[in-house]
C-alpha cells in the first residue's frame, strides 16, 4: 500500500491545482493589473478609499462575534450539564435551523423586522410605539448572530463536555466558590472551544454580503457587497474586485494568525469535524 499509493493522490493534486491554486493566482494577477493587462498598483491603492467599508465590516463582525459568544457560552454550559439524552436532543435542535437555507432564514427576519412587520404590528396592537428596525446596522448584526450562533455553541459544547468533572470537584474541595471555579478552571479549559467558535463566527460574518443586503438596506455596505458589485453588479471592475478580495484574505489570515497564538493546535480539526 505504501509503494503504489503516492500516485493515487495525483488526480486530486491536479484538481486542486487547477481549481484552487490557479484561481488564487488569477486573483493576484487581476489585482495587480489594469484592464489592458499591464502591471499597476492602482487597484490595491484605491482599496484605501473603501477603508470605511472595511472598518464597518470588521466592527459589525466583531460585535456579532462577541454577542454570539456572550449568548452561546452559557447555553453551551446548560447543554453540557444536561443528561446525555437531553444533550443529544438539544444539540440536534441547535443544528436543525442550519439545515435550512440561510437565505430563507434571513428572509424570515425581514418579515419580522419590517416597519409593517410582525414585531411592529404586535407592538402597535398593545399600544406601544413602532420601532424602525429593518435597514439598520443592528438588523445586520442580528442576522449575523442568528445565522452563525450554532457555529459558536457547538464547538463550545464539545469542549465543555470533555472537561473532566473531577477537576472541577477538586477545585470546589479546595475551597473555590462557583465564580472562582469558572474563572480559574472551566474558562481556561474551554479556551480551545472559544477560539474555534470565535473564528467560525467571525470569518463568515466579516465576509458576508447577503445578510447586509437583505437586512441592512443600501446604507450598510460591507466588504462582501463591495466585491459582489465589482464582479456581478453595476460597478463591474474585476481588477478592483480582486484587489478587495486579496485585502479581505490578508485580514482574515492575520486574524486567524492572532487567534492561533492562543491555540494548542488541534482545535481546527475538531471544529472542522463538527460541520
Amino acid at each position, binding site marked *: *500500500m*505504501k509503494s503504489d*499509493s*503516492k*500516485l*493515487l*493522490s495525483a*488526480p*486530486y*493534486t491536479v484538481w*486542486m491545482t487547477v*481549481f*484552487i491554486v*490557479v*484561481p*488564487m493566482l*488569477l*486573483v493576484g494577477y*487581476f489585482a495587480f493589473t489594469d484592464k489592458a493587462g499591464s502591471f499597476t498598483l492602482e487597484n490595491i491603492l484605491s482599496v484605501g478609499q473603501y477603508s470605511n467599508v472595511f472598518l464597518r465590516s470588521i466592527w459589525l463582525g466583531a460585535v456579532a462575534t462577541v454577542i454570539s459568544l456572550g449568548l452561546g457560552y*452559557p*447555553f453551551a454550559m*446548560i447543554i453540557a450539564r444536561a443528561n446525555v439524552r437531553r444533550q443529544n436532543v438539544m444539540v*440536534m435542535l441547535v443544528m*436543525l435551523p442550519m*439545515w*435550512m*437555507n440561510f*437565505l430563507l*432564514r434571513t*428572509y*424570515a*427576519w425581514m*418579515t*419580522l423586522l*419590517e416597519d*409593517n412587520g*410582525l414585531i411592529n404590528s404586535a407592538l402597535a396592537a398593545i399600544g406601544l410605539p413602532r420601532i424602525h428596525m429593518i435597514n439598520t446596522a443592528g438588523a445586520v448584526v442580528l442576522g449575523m448572530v*442568528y445565522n452563525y*450562533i450554532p457555529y459558536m455553541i457547538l464547538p463550545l459544547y464539545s469542549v465543555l463536555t470533555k472537561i473532566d468533572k473531577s477537576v472541577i470537584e477538586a477545585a470546589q474541595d479546595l475551597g473555590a466558590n462557583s465564580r472562582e471555579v469558572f474563572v480559574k478552571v472551566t474558562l481556561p479549559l474551554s479556551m480551545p472551544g472559544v477560539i474555534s467558535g470565535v473564528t467560525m463566527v467571525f*470569518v*463568515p460574518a*466579516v*465576509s458576508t*454580503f*447577503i445578510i447586509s443586503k*437583505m437586512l441592512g438596506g443600501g446604507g450598510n455596505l460591507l466588504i462582501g457587497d463591495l*466585491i459582489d458589485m465589482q*464582479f*456581478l453588479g453595476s460597478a463591474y471592475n*474585476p481588477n478592483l*474586485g*480582486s484587489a478587495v*478580495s486579496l485585502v*479581505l*484574505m490578508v485580514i*482574515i489570515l492575520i486574524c486567524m494568525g492572532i487567534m492561533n497564538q492562543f491555540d494548542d493546535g488541534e482545535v*481546527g480539526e475538531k471544529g*472542522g*469535524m463538527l*460541520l
Partner: protein
Amino acid sequence: MKKAGGRIYTFLIFLFLYAPILVLIVYSFNDTETGSRVVWGGFSLRWYRKLFEDRLIMEALRNTLVIAVTAAVASTVLGTVAAIGINGMKRLPRRIMMNITNFPMVNPEIVTGVSLMLLFVSAVRLFGGRSLGMASLIAAHITFCLPYVILSVLPKLRQMDPNLYEAAQDLGCPPIKAFFKVVLPEIMPGVMTGMIMAFTLSIDDFVISYFTSGTTQTLPIYIYSMTRRRISPEINALSTVLFAAVMVLLVIVNVRNLKDQSGQQKEEV
C-alpha cells in the same frame, strides 16, 4: 432557582432560533390575494399549488439535485482515492497536501467564489467553449466538497491496521480486489459521512454558486432572486417543504443509527 433560570434561558434561545422559521411556516398557509406577509386571511394551500406549478422553481430544483448528486459522487470517489494516497505519504508532502486541503475551508467563501469565476471566465476567453453554466457549477461544487470528504475519510484510514491490506495481498489477493474487499469496508463509515456532507453542502450552497452559475438557476439562487422581489408567499411554501424534507431525512438517519447501535449491541451479546 438556578435551574428555573436555566430553563428560561434555554427557552429564550430556542425561541430566537425557531421563531422566524415558525413564522415562515405559518404564513405559508396564509390565504391572501395580495400576498401580504403580515395580514392573516385564513388557511389555504394555494401557495403550495402555485409552487408546484412554477416551472422555474421545478427546473431550479432539478438543477440543484443533478449538481448535488454529481458533485457528491465525484468528490467522494476522487477524495477517497486521494485520502489513501495522502495517508501513505511521508511527512512533508502530507503536510503540503493537508494545507492545500484546508485552504478552501479557511478562505472566505466569497473569495473562493470570485476566484473560480475568474478561472472560468478566463478559460472561456482563452480556449473558447461555453460560458458559465452547469459544467462550471459542478466543477465548483466538487472543489468545495473535496476537503470535507478527505477530512472524514483520513481518520478512518489512520485507525485501520495497515497490515490488513498487506495480509490480503500475501494471501494472493490482487491489489484492486484487496482494496474493495479489505480497505473499503473498513473506511466505509468515513466515506459515507463524506458523501452525505458533500451532498448537503452542495444543495445548500449559495455564495460560490452565485459567482459560477452564469444564467443557470439553482434553488438557492432562485430563492435569492425571489427575496429581492419580496412579494410572493410561495417562498414560504418552498421553505416549509424544504424544512419538512430535512426533518424527514434527519429522522430516517437517526432511526437508522439507533437500529445500527442496537444491532451491534445484540451482536456483542
